């Protein structure tokens, strides 16, 4: 067990856990931030995607001891009122079916747009390829990412 001070969604929070504990379970079990989802535990599905600094990372493969003082953003902290351009685009296109994969999709998409504000179709597809949606909402996801890109550019 070891103590860690983590910067999560802008707040410093302390947790006392096994240093190997993946951030996914720290977020879900210790901070009740359950928006970040468990899907595979081996970096293959993207359901657990969070931002580490500006990068989209799979929190199931990120040990709490590797976080250091980098800021972690989860779906709960992506925006104050759920009005991040990606979230707004998701609502506009009405993307979700079951919804389980969508937080991860949104975190991947928002990191992509931060780096590349006007991605091509191929760039969107390859950035989103690590996020599985068993319900098959990919065509809507792509539409929403494009819409968010336009909105970001116009704002």
């Amino acid at each position: 067990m070891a103590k860690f001070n983590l910067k999560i969604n802008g707040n410093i929070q302390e947790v006392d856990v096994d240093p190997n504990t993946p951030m996914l379970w720290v977020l879900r079990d210790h901070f009740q931030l359950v928006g970040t989802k468990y899907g595979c535990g081996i970096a293959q599905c993207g359901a657990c995607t969070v931002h580490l600094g500006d990068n989209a990372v799979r929190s199931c493969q990120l040990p709490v001891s590797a976080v250091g003082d980098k800021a972690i953003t989860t779906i709960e902290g992506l925006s104050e009122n759920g009005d991040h351009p990606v979230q707004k685009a998701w609502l506009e296109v009405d993307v979700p079916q079951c919804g389980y994969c969508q937080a991860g999709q949104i975190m991947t998409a928002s990191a992509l747009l931060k780096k590349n504000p006007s991605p091509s179709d191929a760039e969107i597809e390859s950035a989103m390829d690590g996020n599985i949606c068993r319900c098959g909402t990919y065509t809507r996801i792509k539409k929403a990412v494009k819409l968010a890109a336009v909105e970001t550019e116009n704002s």
Partner: protein
Amino acid sequence: MTVIKTKFGRRAFIKNTSLASGGMILGFNLLASCKDKTVEEVMLMPKEWFEINSYLKIGDNGLVTIYTPNPEFGQNIRTSMPMLVAEELDVDWQSVLVEQAPYHKENFGFQFTGGSQGIRRRWESLRTAGATAKQMLRQAAAQNWQVPVEEITAESGMLHHTSSEKSAGYGEMAALAATLEVPEVVKLKEVKDFKLIGKSHKNIDAKDIVTGKPMFGMDYQKEGMLIAMVEHPPAFGLTLSSVDAEEAKAMPGIKDVVTIKSYKDGFEKGGFDTNAFPELVAIVGNSTWEVMQARKKLRVEWKPITASTETVKGFRGEETKNIPAGLESSTNHKVQMAALAAKPGKIVRKDGKPVAAFKKAAKVLERTYSAPFLAHNTMEPLNAFAFVQGNKVKLAGPMQIPSSMLPAITSSLGIPEENIEMDIPRMGGGFGRKAYGHYVLEAALISQKVNSPVKLIYTREDDMTNGIYRPTYQATYRAAFDVDNNLTALHVKAGGIPESPLFANRFPAGALDNYLAEEWSIDSNITIGAFRAPRSNFMAGAEQAFLDEVAETIGKDPIQFRLDLLKRAKENPVGEENDYDADRYAGVLELVREKSGWKQNDENVHRGVSAYFCHNSYAAHILDVTMKEGTPIVQKVCCAIDCGIVVNPDAAKNMAEGAITDGIGNALYGELTFKDGVPQKNNFHQYQMIRSSDAPKEIDVHFVQNEIEPTGMGEPPFPPIFGAVANALYKATGQRHYEQPFVKEKQVVG
């Protein structure tokens, strides 16, 4: 779990006590997404609610809460079911709040989501709930204003009496309405008068989803709750022998290790009590990671099962299942299937003289199609919350059919049915898998043993290797042609492990003078169950690929060929048992032909067509493939569906898009094989799923406009896509594809 408490008056629950216990109240439209409500929103909440019937209550300010009865797993029925109530109640959609009803048979009837039955079974009852309430509100206004009820009109949440120029909001009459007798009969609207039904309404839960609100079983939290996991045998055909838990118990955060037995000896199983591994080792601890780590230290011994026979009382009556002992392998399955396919099967339908027709044939086309076992792989792995206290239990978890859990829980835990309380959180996918709730029973047994609230979590590996899989199937089609190349007979012989996929009375039965359908099956100890459009999900692909090849042999356009057969089936059907409507079937083919511009001239675009009937609905697809460096790319799928009245068109489109994408993925990559009883894949590094770059670049969904009561929607667009993929791939590559999955090796994305 976030429990959103509103200022419900106790009085409102007089008729509906089950709801007063403060279950997991999820997904308020608009208000749900606001953790701390703003002043305006608190002002919006009524001071008092009046329950008109079990499906709805009306606030003194006119707000309406609708209890949505069925479990949700992505169909968007939490939006479309309340739409049915609101339509007949005649209330603005903006003033509707939605709450998930808990399990309650008396109040909510059969709370079942599956078989594309949701809207179909609720079409009348939910509209009646709305219409009854409206009638009671009109009655209340009539009483209040001392005028005849016939003169009261109701619209958009307002009651009017024209000649006296009196008006009131529903909220003003709700208190009186709630005391009135429930009318015995009510009138439902004509289709032409619908205001909400038929117009797209956005998913009421979308805001909660995109902001990461707790809503799934996996998200359930409770004070003092422990995390549990179960260790199941590594292979089908094995069961628990013994466990040494010393080391595991000594690991940090671990509370206990217990063994559980799901069923009491002699328990009479229902159709959804399927469970390959009824004896398990459960490990319970403080946190998920600690339990995962300690679990590795369990030393469990397994032993072979003995062969058994069980009688199951399912939907289709009593069935006897033989469960053989042994460790099965897919290579053996193939040999077994080939052997049975070569023998005569059980004849399930015979029209005319098929044997003679084949004897006389100038030419015979014979093709065999096959598909492997499939895992459901819902993105939310199996999980369940349970809290047993004495002879009471509170359960919450992903359940497509909550009521199916009751007999096993009553029997195994000794808890009477009336003491079983079940919340129905949103499911992260179901596809049939979550109709089999053995994990809910397991959670309850664990909670009882460790005397604490527990959340049982399956890892992805647990979920994939403790499956209730889509069976493996095979079908051989034969067509006979005369010297002029006319189709004179058709023969299908299909089977699977452990069930046959055949629907003998579906198209093209009825369109052919000589037709023979046979089936066979092989017993297995690998557990199987419903998977989006059971059996159809294989038969459609096989049949539609074969018809494509028959059309080519005859030299006919594949759509016209099907339409000609349907014309025959309509005008002069063979046999009386045909279970499809030839007109509606032809309708989707004609619509998709028109919308896709079927006869296009781009030689780089390769098109495949396919159509199918299942779950009372009709769907046809045209799938366009282009080739890029030897790899097929699905450019576009044009789809036509006849599912009767479409309640919420954009949501239905989303579902069709999902079915199409899911089907393409399964056709190209879906496969689970076994070696010595061990599933050969256990996570997504091995089990290839369709991903963003494989998905169609465009999907164009069209609905046949009619006034037929809604039929199924979740499943019908799924089966035919397998045929469309096969037929387009043939056009693109010159190769016919007979064996699923069509792509054997694919780079796995990390």
